[in-house]
């Protein structure tokens, strides 16, 4: 099953069809669908326990769905582990951050894909380029405007909550080739750092990499999202845009106060088609 690919713009970069995930008797995903189009920021909102995190964990390979298919660039993909997803160019900022507190910033940024020294030191002695990785970490963190830390050999546990989140965001921004997924990336951030992350999300989109943003912070979602996917009881119930709906209308759909009558075809449309309609 593929998307209605008339032009390249209408071909979703990332697509989920009919994802089901049960944890015992708890239904986390109930035939959930999702489309992410090139160059867009897709906001994902939903009440606690709606299955947002489970949905995005299916894309990052951290959760394997019981049923359903995932398409990357129109091709069906089996994601069995986080490294499968990373190899496909998908980077995720998890709500839990997934950083190792006792390890330093440089090591955390490159964890799982360490850079080796060139030549015989790297090939025979498997020597890592610790200095180079720290240098890159410093560059990445300062590019993001998240550099309030000087020492990249500092352990992450000595950082504040906001700085730790900065490390996780920097890692995703540095390695995301195709899609960047952010699960509550501003939860631990102050207002200033939140602005920087929102700006970063726009910058990443302008670089041509689409972003999925999961957040409880409606003003943030409405500020940066091109389309907003509303998740309720394990499935997509509506897709709106900041132009078509107000925050309170979106919240009403999210909590079930308003019934949405959108068909799946309507919800799978890119922003340009939605605006034209």
């Amino acid at each position, binding site marked *: 099953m593929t998307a209605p690919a008339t032009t390249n713009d209408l071909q979703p970069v990332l697509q989920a069809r009919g994802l089901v995930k049960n944890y015992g008797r708890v239904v986390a995903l109930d035939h959930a669908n999702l489309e992410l189009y090139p160059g867009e920021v897709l906001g994902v909102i939903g009440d606690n326990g709606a299955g947002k995190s489970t949905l995005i964990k299916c894309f990052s390979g951290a959760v394997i769905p019981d049923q359903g298919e995932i398409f990357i660039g129109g091709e069906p993909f089996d994601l069995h582990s986080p490294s499968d997803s990373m190899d496909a160019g998908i980077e995720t900022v998890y709500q839990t951050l997934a950083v190792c507190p006792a390890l330093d910033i440089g090591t955390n940024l490159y*964890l*799982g894909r360490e850079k080796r020294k060139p030549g015989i030191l790297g090939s025979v002695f498997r020597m*890592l380029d*610790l200095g180079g990785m720290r240098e890159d970490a410093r560059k990445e963190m300062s590019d993001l405007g998240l550099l309030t830390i000087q020492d990249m050999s500092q352990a992450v*546990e000595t950082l504040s909550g906001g700085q730790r989140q900065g490390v996780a965001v920097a890692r995703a921004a540095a390695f995301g080739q195709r899609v960047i997924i952010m699960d509550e990336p501003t939860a631990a951030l102050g207002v200033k750092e939140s602005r920087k992350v929102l700006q970063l999300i726009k910058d990443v989109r302008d670089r041509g990499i689409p972003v999925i943003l999961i957040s409880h912070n409606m003003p943030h979602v409405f500020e940066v999202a091109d389309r907003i996917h509303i998740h309720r009881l394990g499935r997509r119930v509506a897709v709106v845009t900041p132009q078509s709906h107000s925050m309170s209308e979106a919240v009403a759909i999210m909590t079930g106060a308003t019934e949405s009558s959108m068909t799946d075809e309507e919800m799978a449309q890119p922003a340009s088609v939605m605006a034209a309609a």
Partner: protein
Amino acid sequence: MSGPQPEHRGQDHAAAEATAGAVAGEIVEQERRELTPMQRAQRVLHKYQALAPLLFLGFLLVIFTLMSDRFLQPFNMSLIIQQVTVVGTLAIGQTIIILTAGIDLSVGAITVLVSIIMAKMSDGLGVPGIGALLIGFTVGTSCGLLNGLLVTRLRLPPFIVTLGTLSIFFALNLYVSASTTVRGRDMDSLLTATAGKEGTLKIFETPIPLASLGMLLMYVVMTYVLKYTAWGRHIYATGDDPEASRLTGINVNRVLVSVYAVAGLIYGIGAWFLIGRVGAASPQVGLSYNLDTITAVVIGGTSLFGGRGMVFGTLLGAIIVGMARNGLSLAQFDPLWQDFTVGVLVIAAVTLDQWIRRVSA
């Protein structure tokens, strides 16, 4: 429509930002607050993990030198090094396992089993020395591999797995050895070549067995591996936060299995050193190594909760224990005070670790 108007939203943002700016200012003030000397010490010890055991080693050196003239003699220093060689070697394996937040209670049992198998291969079956060694290393690695597979496949706590394999390997050892000792002179000379008359060098008038040099070399290699290779970094990451490690794409189970297997190989080499040190392979010698290696690791500042520590600390820990026992004995304390002191050291080291771990941002 009941949603807020865009203009309103903008104003709210500006107001919110102004308040938040003030709050951020306060936080910065808080961070600039002077640290107390205790907090500063805590941070230094957190950053330089080998510092605490190193200082303590220096303290012991001074104390015991004052208590006995013979303590600092080259011959006595050599004795301490010889006494810590086997425990020090085995503790390298214990360290990498503890770094993954695991523990290995079967060290001693694997070591004795391997030493018996090496000896029996050479003595009973006439396998050449090098063959007996390689078979021994293979057995050690396999024992470690079994531990690793049980920990990852059955998802059992390492404590339980190795408590079980401790009994299993020890029983196998009694079976293979028929509960009898193999004398050193009945084996191929390679098996006993790491110590004794032929296996000892004189360095600055200090006799140093080859086994001790081998142990030091292994510490150098493992220090490099842990610090400069991806596998080493993944060991720390796995022990620190296995779920975060998994999410960053590390195959946590593969790391764990390989760590237990490599530890098994290290125990195999330790078994070779043990034969040299004792001059025989005995099914009863070496069981105390189970706990002695844990003692060395803990005193060396490696955290039992994983992700924190270093093998160099373990070497210091092993030497601290050896030095404390030797110094107390030279000062003519009853041997029971040696055990007493080691016990106090373990508790003090873990208490210190707990405190250092609480360093705040």
